[in-house]
């Protein structure tokens, strides 16, 4: 099967974006509903979080194995300077996103005296948004060029 001029690294980034979005969108919607209703306690949230992390790891391994098997030659190529440059540039911006998110959460916590479960999940959400931005930017650079 001929690859559509998409490198293994780009396919890998697409896969990670899809997995993280799919799993953590589910996690945050469940946690948000549970915290609003008061139906989730710490143990239940920890269980959901643990399940989400395990799911991400398993899906990452599965999907990356499939991508590598579809085009073994591309998978054997190591990432090059273009991959590293895009990753660094995306990481730089996503780092800012995370920093701003943490500052907002810190301010909200001090002003509104938020519960620790809310703070923990808001911090997780900031990490999720930051990672999403990183993957999305890398794909943008691959598609548009830099």
């Amino acid at each position, binding site marked *: 099967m001929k690859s559509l*001029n998409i*490198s*293994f690294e780009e396919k890998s980034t697409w896969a990670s974006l899809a997995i993280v979005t799919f799993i953590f969108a589910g996690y945050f919607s469940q946690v948000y509903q549970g915290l609003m209703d008061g139906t989730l306690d710490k143990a239940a949230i920890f269980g959901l979080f643990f399940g989400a992390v395990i799911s991400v790891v398993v899906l990452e391994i599965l999907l990356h194995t499939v991508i590598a098997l579809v085009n073994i030659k591309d998978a054997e190529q190591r990432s090059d*300077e*273009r991959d590293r440059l895009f990753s660094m540039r995306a990481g730089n911006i996503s780092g800012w996103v995370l920093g701003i998110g943490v500052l907002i959460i810190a301010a909200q916590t001090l002003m509104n005296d938020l519960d620790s479960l809310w703070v923990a999940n808001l911090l997780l959400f900031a990490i999720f948004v930051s990672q999403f931005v990183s993957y999305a930017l890398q794909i943008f650079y691959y598609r*548009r060029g830099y």
Partner: protein
Amino acid sequence: MKPAISNNIRRLRFDNNEMTQQALAEAIGVTRQTVIAIEKGKYSPSLEVAFKIAETFSVTLDQVFQYQGGK
């Protein structure tokens, strides 16, 4: 927007027995997709890769790349 740096890689590959993008990629140590991006002007390589391309075709750097900026 027109890229600031243009290149003759497509022609140089043609002049070198239709060297494939894969063969060039292997010669300069990048992926085939990076060679495609450079050829299309969608990625400006590092100096090291630029020199490796020139060396592969046994030409000077300015025979491979032309800077269009400021024109």
